[in-house]
């Protein structure tokens, strides 16, 4: 079941094409990573989903139906460029933003008090925003994004500007929201957090989608027959053990243990490697190295640039 579908979205700004026929499907209950280098068109796509700007062509479906204006109440959006009215009181401001999302005043107060308590912000309710630390302001922004319990959450670079403690807090909250059934679109260039959080991704480069699918599938798809092996008892050149078309990528020594990464020639299996090694060395560990999202990201983006 998909919560949200964007079909063939194109958007042209005055001087350049921001999106060129981009389609994404966001499955229910997933964390969907929207990846891409700066200027690729991620923010444009997110703004189109939030109906801040209109696409030139393309369709937007929310749970299978064409998206309407009031559907934005079912979305929570934390933009990359975010802030609060500095001179306004924290509680008053949170209340205002919640009401703009369609909550009644009583409802908003009740829910805000719950979240403010959870983030230990309650004593700051009547203080001005400018008196809060940056981290606390970020928490307030996070609260007003999720307070109306939206079905779809969109976080654009949510961790930028957070210290590591708050990053963890936020990650836990995001995973908690997923547990409770929210679907999350997550835009970032922080690949470590993509591997950690995302189930699905779409990679956008130069206004086009160049890759999408489940994270697990993509990493398997891009594995390059690379293995890491640690061993001892062999002191000769490692290269001598392998055929010329196998490639030793790296080799390190950790105390008396040697660790090597080897890319096997096409068609060779892990067992072939082990068979070659077994007569000469004592093997301590052996595993296949899956490419990181970072590697895939860089190679895909460069591949497009090269062509």
């Amino acid at each position, binding site marked *: 079941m998909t919560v949200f579908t964007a079909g063939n979205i194109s958007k042209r700004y005055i001087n350049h094409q921001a999106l060129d026929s981009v389609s994404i499907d966001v499955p229910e209950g997933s964390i969907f990573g929207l990846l891409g280098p700066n200027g690729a068109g991620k923010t444009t796509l997110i703004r189109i989903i939030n109906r801040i700007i209109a696409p030139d062509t393309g369709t937007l479906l929310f749970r299978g139906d064409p998206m309407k204006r009031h559907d934005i109440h079912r979305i929570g*959006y934390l933009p990359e*460029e975010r802030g609060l009215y500095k001179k306004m009181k924290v509680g008053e401001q949170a209340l205002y*933003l919640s009401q703009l999302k369609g909550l009644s005043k009583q409802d908003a107060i009740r829910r805000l008090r719950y979240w403010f308590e959870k983030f230990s912000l309650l004593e700051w309710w009547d203080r001005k925003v400018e008196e809060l630390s940056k981290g606390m302001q970020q928490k307030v922004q996070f609260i007003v994004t999720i307070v109306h319990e939206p079905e779809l959450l969109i976080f654009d670079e949510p961790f930028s500007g957070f210290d590591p403690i708050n990053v963890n807090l936020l990650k836990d909250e995001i995973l908690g929201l997923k547990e409770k059934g929210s679907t999350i679109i997550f835009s970032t260039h922080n690949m470590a957090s993509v591997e950690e959080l995302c189930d699905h991704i779409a990679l956008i480069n130069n206004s086009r989608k160049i890759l999408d699918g489940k994270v697990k599938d993509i990493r398997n798809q891009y594995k390059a027959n690379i293995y890491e092996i640690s061993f001892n008892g062999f002191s000769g050149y490692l290269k001598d053990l392998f055929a010329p078309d196998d490639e030793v990528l790296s080799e390190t020594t950790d105390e008396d243990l040697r660790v090597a990464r080897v890319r096997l020639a096409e068609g060779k299996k892990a067992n072939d490697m082990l068979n070659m090694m077994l007569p000469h060395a004592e093997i301590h560990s052996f595993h296949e190295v899956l490419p990181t999202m970072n590697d895939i990201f860089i190679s895909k983006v460069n591949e497009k640039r090269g062509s």
Partner: protein
Amino acid sequence: MNKVLLIIKREYLTRVRKRSFIIMTILGPLLMASVFILPIVLSQMSDGSQKNIAVLDETGIFYGKFQDGDNIHFEYVVSDLESAKENALEREDYALLYIPKTELSVPSAAVIYSQDQPSVNVKSYIRNVMKKEVESLKLEASGVDEDVLRSIRSKISLTTIKIDESGEEEKTFTEVSMGLGIFASILIYMFIFIFGAQVMRGVIEEKSSRIVEIIVSSVKPFQLMLGKILGIAFVGLTQFLLWIVLTFAIVSVFQVAYADMTLMQNAPGRTAQEILDEPGSMAEEDATERIFEMIHSIDFSVMIWSFLFYFLGGYLLYAALFAAIGSAVDSEADTQQFMMPVTIPLILSIIMAQFVVQNPNGPVAFWFSIIPLTSPVIMMVRIPFGVPLTDLYLSIALLISGFVVTTWLAGKIYRTGILMYGKKISYKEIWKWIKY
């Protein structure tokens, strides 16, 4: 619509609670009240010097009736008006009182020629003496019964005309219209500038604090702009109403207090009758009479309604433009290049107001009061003098369509501008946004 109301409410409440708003609300009326009060105080202050008043009485009725006071001396002259005026100027008389001959058996009008505005005391004394004299003449001439007594309650119209060395004469009455017109137009000019700039600053604040994207993910950019403009319009109206009420309160408190004061001062050495007849109470009667005269000559309901209309219309027209400017820049320092074309018509109209007030029905006045960018200021100058209804309707219609057009244009600039950061925007760029 509900969301626009929320935005209006926020814009209104955050501004009305600001310290600067409260200070302005108190200072404004004090300034305005002093404009009303100072001339009265100054004209009542006796300078202690001997005042000579020449009396040219063509009727001959009032000969010897004006009694010399502490420092006032009445001198009766016999000549024609022109030479009497010259004489008065030459001898530096305080004033010349001219009572013209009338067809009626008793005169009902007189004129004071003076270099300075004659003091309220002097004027009310003269009026009083004449009134008493005329009344007694009328009483003499007729048998006294109820109806007659009512009919002989007389009113004296005392026109003051200033003369100066060049021999020009000017009725103080047009001055009232001029004053009123200029006052209203300056007020509109100030309001447009003050509150238009507030709209601009508000937009810049939202942009630079980066809250704008959070808000436009809940409401349309146009709703946000409209809510801000309307919210600040209500702030302006609130301030204006408070100013009117407070000014009125201060002036009336002053009048009561001042009337008491002058009564007390004048008390010693006078008879009760004289006190009753003279200053204090008379000053008040004089003032109210002038207000009545003004009300008769100037249609105040037209004045107030058109003020409110041109204030709101002019504000809406310019506020939209100010909002567009705010959306196109990153900080207030960058606004200069865009402020120019918006402020020029405003400044031009306040400069033109001084010429329009001289000739409120000329072609310059007509065109400037029709063109929407200048009409709010210029039409307010013309209205106290009376404006042909066709001019008024044309101006109103054009102003309404004017602010519809600017709001529409501004909306197009605004929705692109608010999401644009870190880029120096040129006019060419803005033109593209409008066409886009």
